[in-house]
């Protein structure tokens, strides 16, 4: 039986000890004496969140297929254990071997959302690794970050030795070989980082410098040594069928957020919604071969014993072989008593038919994401979904027995007016009215339930809205109040429930999203003052964050509400995600003139992603297709 890093006394005291013991089905244990490189892969949040993440499962599987590497998992200890580890000076450990992370060669940290930044410092701190990269020595692991937030790594630049920009499947083998080679030559940590900095997709912040204008914007961002690239190109898997994908994902003992087989059917999105960062970062759309998906579905279900399978992608309805795949799954899964989850599906006859077969209609709700309340504003954000399509979908669904509808909107989008906000209330009302018109009294099961939720819009790098000013907290709250008032004025207000997000966290997220290197000291300060688990409402301490900004002399408004000029150098401009700044500018201007841009399948917009020579950019287009945007909602 394997040893544990924590004593029985501690494990019996903390909440959910299963978070810390490893030993899960399909977790990988190797013989330490037979491997060369130890890799700790970390998701800096609690186990149940981290274990639900597909990317980690892919990289864990890939790295463990390398015979010379043992990859283990690390998650943030929850606050109860965090305090015990600090008090008793227990070093952070990896789950499989229970060995201290500090003994590893690499600590990889996936950075999925901005509000996990203090958790990254917790990981380093508990591991006994200096928080500042420049203070690390040859005995510390190489700390490497990846994931969507690595596309603007600057607020975290001081804490990381390397960032991996783009999809993880492509460069780790080379990086690890380089590491082994450097070690064999008795090269220093600095030697390794210098060599790594020259690999495609790898950014080593310590080899770059920034100078600023008097107004605080960036003057120049440049490499400090010859041979270090000035631009980092994102890494991308050009063939998503012939690549790494886990056949045996790790199965947790405790219930986690995503407790099912996850089948990633495609990467990227053809839609080009202007607020959406993922839609730009993962261009171009690449589909996995349907036969490969069928094979993996069967293998993964068999190897995990999961009772549910979910398709994953940014917009599943755009997958060209969706019907074939879903029919196959329905046949296989019904036989095996496996549930099918189909998120991000457009609502139409096909999807309703499928949902009818795989779900309990009475219990499930259908979801639309119009994102904005008026057609004008939907045109600004390039969300092609029209009111007509939403109402048609809703009517079809009501006929099919559904009575619950979820609607997702954003507040604070560029050019938004009061009228657009009222549109949220009006659309919700129309859907409720459609229910009462469609479903006769005797067939109704009480009222219909419309749940309208709003989140606050935060401009993200590499989107056409990267130039847009973000709203202040007060503006956000005014907008939420107006939405609520407008909903209360509706005829069917009793059938509509309204939820809105916290505004404080949105302001901070805005700072980190478009922040520069100077933001690092605020993150450090806030962490030292006790901020941790900022993504969790119960542990988020806004007042402490505000103090930290004050103490560091940083102005929040500079990063959030400031209007940026078209020629401003952004902190993330040295990264190329394949989409050109020119294209994004074009899209920003089209947004302001309320012009819709056709999706990638309809017409190429020359965004720049065609340079990767794969995916939708090289599919045969049917130019005679209707040019009307037909995007629907999602189930």
């Amino acid at each position: 039986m394997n040893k544990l890093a924590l004593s029985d006394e501690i494990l019996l005291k903390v909440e959910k000890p299963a978070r810390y013991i490893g030993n899960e089905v399909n977790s990988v244990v190797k013989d330490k004496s037979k491997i060369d490189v130890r890799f700790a892969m970390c998701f800096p949040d609690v186990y149940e969140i981290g274990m639900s993440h597909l990317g980690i499962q892919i990289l864990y599987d890939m790295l463990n297929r390398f015979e010379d590497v043992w990859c283990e998992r690390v998650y943030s200890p929850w606050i109860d254990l965090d305090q015990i580890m600090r008090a008793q000076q227990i070093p952070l450990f990896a789950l499989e071997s229970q060995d201290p992370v500090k003994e590893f060669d690499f600590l990889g940290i996936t950075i999925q959302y901005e509000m996990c930044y203090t958790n990254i410092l917790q990981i380093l701190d508990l591991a006994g690794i200096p928080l500042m990269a420049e203070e690390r020595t040859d005995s510390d692991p190489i700390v490497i970050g990846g994931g969507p937030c690595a596309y603007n790594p600057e607020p975290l630049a001081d804490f990381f030795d390397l960032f991996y920009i783009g999809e993880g499947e492509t460069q780790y083998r080379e990086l690890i070989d380089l590491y082994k080679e450097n070690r064999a030559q008795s090269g220093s940590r600095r030697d390794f980082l210098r060599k790594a900095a020259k690999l495609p997709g790898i950014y080593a912040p310590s080899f770059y410098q920034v100078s600023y204008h008097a107004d605080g914007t960036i003057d120049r961002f440049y490499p400090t040594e010859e041979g270090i690239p000035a631009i980092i190109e994102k890494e991308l898997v050009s063939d998503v069928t012939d690549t790494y994908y886990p056949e045996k994902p790790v199965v947790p003992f405790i219930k986690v957020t995503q407790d099912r087989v996850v089948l990633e059917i495609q990467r990227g999105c053809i839609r080009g919604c202007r607020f959406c960062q993922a839609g730009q970062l993962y261009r171009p759309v690449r589909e996995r071969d349907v036969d490969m998906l069928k094979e993996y579905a069967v293998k993964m279900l068999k190897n995990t014993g999961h009772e549910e399978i979910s398709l994953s992608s940014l917009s599943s309805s755009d997958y060209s072989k969706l019907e074939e795949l879903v029919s196959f799954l329905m046949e296989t899964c019904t036989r095996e008593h496996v549930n099918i989850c189909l998120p991000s599906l457009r609502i139409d006859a096909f999807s309703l038919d499928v949902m009818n077969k795989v779900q309990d209609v009475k219990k499930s709700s259908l979801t639309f994401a119009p994102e904005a309340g008026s057609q004008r504003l939907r045109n600004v954000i390039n969300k092609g979904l029209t009111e007509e399509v939403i109402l048609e979908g809703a009517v079809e669904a009501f006929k099919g027995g559904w009575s619950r509808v979820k609607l997702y909107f954003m507040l604070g989008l560029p050019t938004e007016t009061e009228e657009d906000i009222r549109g949220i209330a009006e659309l919700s009302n129309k859907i409720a009215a459609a229910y009462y018109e469609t479903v006769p009294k005797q067939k109704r099961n009480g009222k219909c339930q419309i749940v309208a939720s709003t989140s606050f819009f935060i401009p993200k790098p590499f989107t056409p809205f990267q130039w847009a000013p973000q709203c202040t907290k007060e503006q956000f709250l005014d907008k939420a109040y107006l939405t609520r008032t407008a909903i209360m004025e509706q005829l069917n207000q009793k059938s509509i429930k309204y939820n809105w997000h916290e505004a404080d966290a949105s302001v901070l997220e805005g700072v980190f999203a478009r922040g520069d290197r100077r933001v690092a000291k605020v993150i450090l300060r806030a962490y030292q003052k006790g901020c941790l688990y900022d993504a969790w409402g119960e542990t988020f301490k806004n007042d402490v964050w505000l103090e930290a900004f004050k103490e560091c002399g940083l102005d929040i408004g500079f990063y959030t509400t400031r209007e940026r000029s078209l020629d401003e150098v952004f902190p993330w401009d040295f990264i190329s995600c394949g989409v050109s700044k020119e294209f994004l500018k074009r899209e920003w201007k089209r947004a302001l003139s309320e012009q819709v841009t056709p999706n990638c399948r309809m017409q190429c917009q020359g965004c720049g992603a065609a340079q990767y020579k794969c995916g939708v950019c090289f599919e045969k287009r049917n130019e005679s297709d209707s040019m009307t945007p037909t995007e629907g909602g999602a189930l």
Partner: protein
Amino acid sequence: MKVRIQFSKHGVMKFIGHLDIMRYFQKAMRRADVDIAYSGGYSPHQIMSFAAPLGVGLESDGEYLDIEVNSHNGAEHMKQALNAVMVDGIRILSVRMLPDQAKNAMASVAAAGYLVRFRKGYEPDFDYQGTLQDFYGQDTIPFVKQTKNSEIELNLKPAIYELEIRDEAVYMLVDASSAGNIKPSMVMEAFYRFREKDLPEFALQITRTDTYTAIEEDGIKHFIPLRDVGIAF
């Protein structure tokens, strides 16, 4: 056909609670390709029932679950197939067929045996081996059970069927039925009280040795392990 499965739970698995063990076995049945029967209705679930829930922190050699199967390739095959998909710390010990009239695992539980050891550094500072029988010999064994809002005074004596020293550890066979279930820690706490001591937190390392059902033969009540209700197949 109903099948009774006995398994052990050791090592790090003692930190996995009862509900998660149930989920673990549901997935294990699928991995092992056991042709388990499902209930009807809109959301069918596997027909599976567990005997006595084991507290977090306890180990066991006598855990049981009953399942219903549509088909099988014999007990040995099922045992091997399940063991091939188990994690470290859980082993399938026996697979038996249940007679149709047998009560399900949970309903038939009458008693459980426990071996109580002391964690290193927590050994009692009194002669527990020499005084255990004095404690057991009392007419009543009082125990105050704390509930949310009140204290209930219990007499543990009738619920303790056996109490003795085995391999330097305390062995007890106690009531584990749904009506009168008592925990081994309650007995140990009462023992410490009897010696005018307080049982420190985390002092005990407890292993459930087996789970029993009661049968009556010639008017005398016997306890037999749950597996013995089943027959080989």
